[in-house]
């Protein structure tokens, strides 16, 4: 559960740090013993919720850690402290684009970290390409990642596409069905937004191919707050598996509604929000067995260390999907700088071809994309762990049927 007071404190401190760091940003580039890193993310507006979980805390944590170790190591073994230039894009792509122009042409920062969101990352991609900065887009889920990686050759796409997650889920469900644990009926709902539509479009043919029958398949508008009608329809559909391609308000609302009405499908799958640290609190401590998008290696020590560090620095653990990947992308950047320095072309080449040790294990990009991803996770014994793909190192066995609420 979020501790509101603690959060407020963390927020003000972070704000003070950011403000202080900005004051010095103007002449920072002149100094040789620092490197300036800039980013523009949503600190206010509708995107602030997403950025506030997956992006901003990780950026701040990483900078804190690196500077705590004396700075980023350069190829010659020297270390440079990181100075941060942080802007608020107010959840508007127009403001975001301008902020990137500002970082690149006014502040002349050494590196630019990406914003939160698919649309935001796409909006800045042409600019980043024009200025030559490498762009490690994490919080951008798009099936067109291969196209984009080819279009802007210094862009890297780290979180896959809707199709990956949809087929990953179908694989997990197909195994359970083949084992006779669940029937072949699926009730699916999707949020009427780019993300939800991408996923359901990927899932429909995948379900069909695997021999599943979609007995309930509806989308609901962004902003829906009441799920009683949808959930009672899903319950009446006779499906053993409930699948929601949803955003946090929907994921949370459906969980509560299912609990209240005693809807106990054998598989209960939700999307964004399911891997958030506040989820078990929302599920009234009964999160075990709930599946959701994403996941981390539950057996990995580095993941555990990362979670502890995040909790200590921010006040709450990270989410178990995009956060770890975000942090890993920063570690990649750090290691790439250590190998080739700050030249953008060399950095991009190294990111593209190199192999990196990160919290999520050894990472090697394929065609500028991270393909070795957790697609399905599940709450098991109070932790959210990756269960699919089943052949991925550290994959836990899915618990199906889910224990009743």
């Amino acid at each position, binding site marked *: *559960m*979020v*501790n*509101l*007071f603690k*959060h*407020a404190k963390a*927020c*003000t401190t972070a704000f003070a740090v950011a403000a202080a760091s900005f004051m010095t940003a103007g002449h920072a580039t002149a100094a040789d013993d620092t490197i300036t890193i800039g980013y523009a993310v949503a*600190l*206010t*507006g*509708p995107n*602030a*919720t997403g*950025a*506030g*979980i997956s992006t901003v805390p990780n950026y701040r944590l990483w900078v804190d850690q690196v500077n705590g170790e004396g700075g980023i190591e350069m190829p010659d073994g020297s270390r440079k402290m990181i100075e941060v230039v942080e802007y608020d894009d107010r959840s508007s792509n127009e403001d975001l684009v301008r902020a990137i122009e500002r970082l690149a042409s006014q502040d002349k920062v050494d590196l630019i970290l990406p914003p939160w969101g698919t649309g935001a990352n796409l909006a800045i991609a042409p600019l980043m390409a024009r200025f030559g900065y490498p762009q490690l887009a994490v919080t951008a889920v798009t099936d067109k990642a291969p196209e984009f990686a080819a279009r802007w050759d210094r862009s890297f796409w780290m979180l896959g596409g809707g199709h990956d997650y949809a087929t990953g889920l179908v694989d997990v469900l197909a195994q359970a069905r083949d084992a006779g644990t669940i029937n072949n009926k699926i009730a699916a*709902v999707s949020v*009427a937004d780019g993300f939800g539509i991408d996923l359901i479009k990927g899932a429909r043919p995948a379900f069909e191919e695997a021999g599943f029958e979609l007995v309930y398949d*509806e*989308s*609901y*508008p962004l*902003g*829906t*707050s*009441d799920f*009683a*009608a*949808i959930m*009672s*329809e899903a319950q009446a559909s006779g499906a053993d598996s409930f699948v929601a391609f949803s955003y*946090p*308000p929907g994921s*949370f*609302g459906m969980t*509560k*509604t299912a*609990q*209240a*009405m*005693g809807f106990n499908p054998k598989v209960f799958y939700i999307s964004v*929000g399911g891997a*958030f640290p*506040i989820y078990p*609190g*929302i*599920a*009234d*401590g009964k999160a075990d067995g709930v599946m959701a998008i994403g996941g981390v290696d539950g057996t990995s020590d580095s993941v555990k260390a990362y979670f502890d560090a995040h909790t200590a620095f921010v006040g709450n653990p990270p989410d178990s999907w995009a956060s770890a990947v975000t942090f890993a992308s920063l570690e990649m950047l750090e290691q790439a700088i250590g190998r080739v320095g700050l030249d953008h072309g060399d950095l991009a080449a190294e990111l593209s071809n190199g192999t990196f040790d990160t919290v999520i294990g050894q990472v090697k990009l394929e065609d500028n994309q991270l393909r070795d991803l957790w697609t399905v996770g599940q709450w098991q014994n109070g932790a959210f762990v990756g269960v699919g793909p089943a052949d991925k190192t550290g994959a836990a066995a899915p618990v199906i049927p889910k224990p009743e609420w």
Partner: protein
Amino acid sequence: MFVTILILGLVLGGTYALLALGLTLQYGIARIMNLAYGELTLAAAFVLVALMQGFGISPLLTVALIGPVGYVVGSLLYTVMMKPLVARSSGGKLDVDSILATFGLLFLIQGVLLLVFGPNFTSISYLDKGVTIFGVTVALNRLIALGICVVVGGALVIALATTRWGLALRAVAQTPTSAPLVGLDVNKVARQGFALGTALAATAGATVAMYQTFSASGGVVFTMKALVIVIMGGVGNVGGALAAGLLLGLVETFVATAIDPGLTLAATFAIFLLVLLFRPQGLFGKA
């Protein structure tokens, strides 16, 4: 299926109606179209969660106690912010002024909420138990909201219709210019109306916190929903708002169950716009 729609719809409608009661009072009596209404409800929701997590205070206690707090806040707001506007202008100019001023208030409260509570989604689990009525399971916390709505709304309707105080409120609501002629202190009555509206907004917000996920930037959604209901019920018409809220719940549930969940919001807006265009006095008002 009919029973399901009826019960789910009424429960949902109850939460909607509760949300709209305060707004209709504020505009009906105080003539202030308060666009910061949703932020006021949000503030109450955050207070409930903070009290529960920080001090272990039972949400139900907060729901009971936040009304009076809201009344005081509303009274202050009216005196400091709205009264000068009312004193300066009336009619259409007041409408525009109050909309712009409360717009400012909207951002102000939102900014403070962001600063204090952060941008993240907030959600608690409280009384998420199911209760079965005629074979349909509904969440207890939503049922409580419906109960509060029926009790408070019913009491308001009766009080407005039968008491001296209610008569004064109605007199000011109908003809603010001639109310002083019969010895009514219009400013006082308007302040009471605005404060009462704020109290209801706070109560509704605290109730919302029990069953819904919310974040600091989501207040406008509540304002929009309340506005739709207020317009449907007829501005200033408490009974109308109650009926319209329940009706909207039924319609949304019907559309989600029988037609397509994707069209629930579209249906809401369609009804809203049709009422605005053809019966701006509301579904239940006189022509």
